[in-house]
Structures are given as C-alpha cells and as structure tokens.
C-alpha cells in the first residue's frame, strides 16, 4: 500500500506528553543524539544527564568553536530559539546530506517500539524539528536513506501548514500538490512515490497549541513553564536500510 496517509488525532494526550518528556528531558541530554547547535558550538551537558530544563542546567553556556564567527549560547537562547533539531539514532549530516559511514547509534527503544507498532516500518533514524511562529522548513526531499521504506511524521504542539508535491504524472501535466493543516497528535505516513516527494512547512499557526499541552514542561520546571505554548515539534522517523 503506497501513497500519502493521514492518521488524524492518532496519539492520545498522555502519549504526546510522554514523547515530549522522553525527547527533551532524556534524549536531548544524551551526547549520542546530536543537534544543530553541535555544528558550531561546544555543547556541554547537565550533571548526571539531568534535563536541560532543570535548575542544574540553568547556568550552562555553549562556547563557539570559532569565536570570530559565532557568539556563546546561553540556556535561555538554546531552548527558546537556537535549538532547531535533534537527531535520534542515525545521525544525518545536514551539510553533506548523507548519513556517516559505520553503524548508527541505537534508536531510543521505547519510541522505536511505539513507532513500529503503529506503522509498517523500522524506526532507525529520526529528526526532531522544533518550530516557533515565523519559522519555516523550506521545500526539500528526503532522499538519503538506503531504502524505499515509508517515512512517518508525528506532530506535537502548534498547528503547522504542510505542503507536499510531486511533478505531473506525465510531462506537461500540472504538479500534484496537497496542503495539510497538521494538528497535535496527528501522524502522516509517506510511502511509495510520496516518500520522496517535495515537502515543506511554510507556516506555524500561533495560538493553536492544545490547552492541556501549553504549560509543558510544567510549573516544576520553573522558568520553562509554558514553553510549549509557542512551539511545534515534529518527530520525523525514517528506516535507513532494507
């Protein structure tokens, strides 16, 4: 079965909140899962793999690899706007647009089991994208995996507009395009031709994060209470090999 599939409101609230907790309190503090910030800064970690949202991480500062080009990043800057993506499992090289040689780090087993029970694929690599209103993801295709297996996408937080398109089926025919409004808890599966379709996120809709998620990570995390109110998180899971 191939095509573009929508699973509206697939994930219950509790599952969505656990995905946030596992990705941001646990996996972000694991050095094997790299982020966009690792490219140009020396990323340091909270003591005992504590969460970056914890008080113990409050004073951390990431020094730039080249001070002539980049400035230090404080925790406030990191979690508010500088952190744009985290890679889980296979660590994609966004500059060279390839996966590095050698076996990839293990994919978080609990998220792997969840994804593999929902979708007909193996969860081997994922990119967790973070957006705020005004952020976009340009048109691109995900063509670097060594197999034609499906790609699963899970939305959390604010609504996002998702544009996906293929050229016309025959030369001279118009492009085949669909525009979706994706909401928190929705999942999308791209398989067959749509697996390699052009896709993008041209807009994040401010004020659309579900009420019960807005306060995440919650008042026990002090200054980060309400962090999710202006965020859209997309967990984009791929199978790397047949």
């Amino acid at each position, binding site marked *: 079965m191939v095509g573009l599939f929508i699973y509206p409101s697939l994930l219950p609230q509790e599952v969505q909140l656990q995905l946030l907790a596992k990705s941001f309190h646990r996996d972000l503090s694991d050095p094997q899962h790299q982020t966009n910030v690792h490219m140009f800064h020396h990323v340091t970690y909270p003591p005992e793999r504590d969460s970056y949202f914890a008080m113990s991480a409050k004073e951390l500062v990431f020094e730039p690899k080249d001070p002539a080009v980049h400035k230090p990043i404080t925790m406030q800057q990191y979690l508010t706007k500088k952190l744009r993506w985290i890679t889980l499992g296979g660590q994609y090289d966004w500059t060279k647009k390839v996966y590095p040689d050698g076996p990839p780090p293990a994919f978080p087993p609990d998220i792997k089991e*969840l994804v593999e029970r929902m979708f007909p694929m193996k969860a081997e690599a994922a990119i967790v994208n973070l957006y705020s209103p005004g952020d976009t993801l340009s048109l691109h295709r995900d063509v670097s995996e060594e197999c034609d297996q499906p790609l699963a996408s899970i939305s959390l937080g604010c609504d996002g507009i998702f544009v996906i398109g293929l*050229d016309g089926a025959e030369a001279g025919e118009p492009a085949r*395009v669909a*525009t979706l409004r994706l909401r928190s808890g929705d999942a999308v599966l791209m398989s067959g031709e749509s697996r390699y379709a052009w896709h993008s996120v041209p807009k994040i809709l*401010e004020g659309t994060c579900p009420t019960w998620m807005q306060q995440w990570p919650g008042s026990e995390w002090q200054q980060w209470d309400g962090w999710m109110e202006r965020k859209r998180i997309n967990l984009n899971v791929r199978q790397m090999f047949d």
Partner: protein
Amino acid sequence: MATHLDAHAKPPASIRQIYKHFQKLDPRAVDKDDGIIDTQSLHESHPHVSSTSLLQLPANIRETFTNFVGGQITATEEPKVYSVNAIPGKSANLNIGSEL
C-alpha cells in the same frame, strides 16, 4: 540511498509558488482556505481524501499506548486512516524525479 534522486536538486517552480503562497498567507485566512486539508475535518465523503482500511492500526494499539506511558490513557475514538487523493500511490522506483 535513493540514488536516482539528487539531494541537492532545486524544487519545481510550480510547487515553490504554492509554498510561497502559504508562507505569505495571513493566518486569519487559513480557516477560510478551501485548498487546505484540515485533519480535524476529515470524513468519508471529503473531496480531497479517501478513507482506507488497508493501513489499519493493530487491534492492540491501545495496549501499546499504555505501555509507552506506563499508565492509563484517556478514551479516544477509534483511529481512522485516510489517503490523500492528490498524491496517489505508486512504487517509488518508477521513474520518480527523473525530470525533477
């Protein structure tokens, strides 16, 4: 790797125009835009999607969810799956992108 496709290729102009349209769209106009498939409004006779039973979730998916959260989950409707009519199914190795 999908060797028949170039990771550095530029997107077709027609799809780029649609991207720019939505990038510039006033958020207040989103609700009125008939071209947007809102996942909250899908149903059996929706003009842009088709209900499908070919990708059904396993019968014990609720158990998967409770295992994942380590506790109970709130009751939810039976999950449904829709295919998007504009992006039809076709095997990925059939000349996709040769002209992209």
